[in-house]
């Protein structure tokens, strides 16, 4: 607050003062900046990513509509790597710990984040969850985001890979409708392929649209129920992990 002319004081105090001397004690300046509106989340995400890498953990963020098969895919991977790779899971939901209970039943370390009304996970939430997991003994961490194809796309969690799932029962015209979440992703899994004989779904269409939105996105087709395609997806994750931790 300026004690000379009262700028910064409430209106009634300003009016009581005479402004015949101008504002010689201050000047106007245009400051050029570069501050991201998401700076706070981005800083925490960078810290998460570094922390995970120090422990040799490849972290994977899974995003999709509710019911596309995120938890089922994690279960299928957990069974496929048993005895070979150690995995951990962070579950994100508005309410219940149903997904965490499924993972826990497999003997996999898991932490449930219950967001209340927040429609996506963010880096600070993941940071708190990382403290609750035995990272020292882990190779691969899945973060199952809140079921939502819109909001998670804007928030870096600090994972090394982000992926979108779309099941063959959701329609082959959905990818172009959700561009932000696909722009955020390094991979895209078409899930529940065992149901293809029962639905009208041209797999080439969503795969092409995903490449239009995100030029270097990797696409997979799989069924967690039959195991078809899970091996190929796992090979991709293991290759990424080797590239990360050496």
């Amino acid at each position, binding site marked *: 607050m300026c004690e000379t002319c009262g700028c910064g004081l409430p209106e009634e105090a300003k009016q009581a003062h005479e402004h015949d001397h101008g504002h010689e004690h201050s000047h106007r300046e245009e400051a050029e*900046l570069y501050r991201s509106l998401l700076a706070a989340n981005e800083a925490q995400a960078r810290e998460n990513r570094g922390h995970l890498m120090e422990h040799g953990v490849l972290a994977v963020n899974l995003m999709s509509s509710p019911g596309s098969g995120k938890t089922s895919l994690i279960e299928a991977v957990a069974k496929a790597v048993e005895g070979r790779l150690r995995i951990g899971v962070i579950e994100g939901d508005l309410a219940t710990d149903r997904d965490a209970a499924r993972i826990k039943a497999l003997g996999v370390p898991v932490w449930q984040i219950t967001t209340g009304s927040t429609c996506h996970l963010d880096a600070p939430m993941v940071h708190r969850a990382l403290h609750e997991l035995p990272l020292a003994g882990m190779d691969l961490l899945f973060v199952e985001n809140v079921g939502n194809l819109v909001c998670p796309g804007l928030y870096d969690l600090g994972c090394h890979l982000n992926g979108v799932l779309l099941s063959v029962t959701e329609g082959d015209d959905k990818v172009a409708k959700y561009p932000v979440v696909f722009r955020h992703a390094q991979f895209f899994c078409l899930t529940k392929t065992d149901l293809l004989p029962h639905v009208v779904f041209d797999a080439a269409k969503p795969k092409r649209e995903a490449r239009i939105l995100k030029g270097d996105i990797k696409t997979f087709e799989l069924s967690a129920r039959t195991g078809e395609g899970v091996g190929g997806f796992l090979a991709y994750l293991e290759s990424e992990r080797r590239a990360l931790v050496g």
Partner: protein
Amino acid sequence: MHEWSLAMSLIEEAGAEARRRGALKVHSITVRVGALTGVVPELLGRAYEVARTGTIFEGADLHLHVEPARASCPTCGEESEFDDFYLVCPSCGGIGLRPMSGEGLVLTRMDIEIPEEDEKNATDARRQGDDR
């Protein structure tokens, strides 16, 4: 999407910058909105009008500029600008383009009133005296 929480983040980031520079008043702030962020400038503007209440930004205009996505086609090499997400080369119809811009949400400018040097030193000295 999330224009309200982005407006709150804008107030926080801009507020930290205003404090860092010792701003007495803010005339305007400028934000660059990447075309690939999915943020609707009009909604962000409206959210800002509410979020700035009771802050140093209450009288400050918000200028929003949309930054298009620039990308070159891996098939024909042609570089094009896009203001939406459908990155198909207008020359050859090629896909798999990787944009070099259009992804950020960035505070790029603040038009502020700052104290003159000797007035600032006096204010700093008073502030240090208060701290003791």
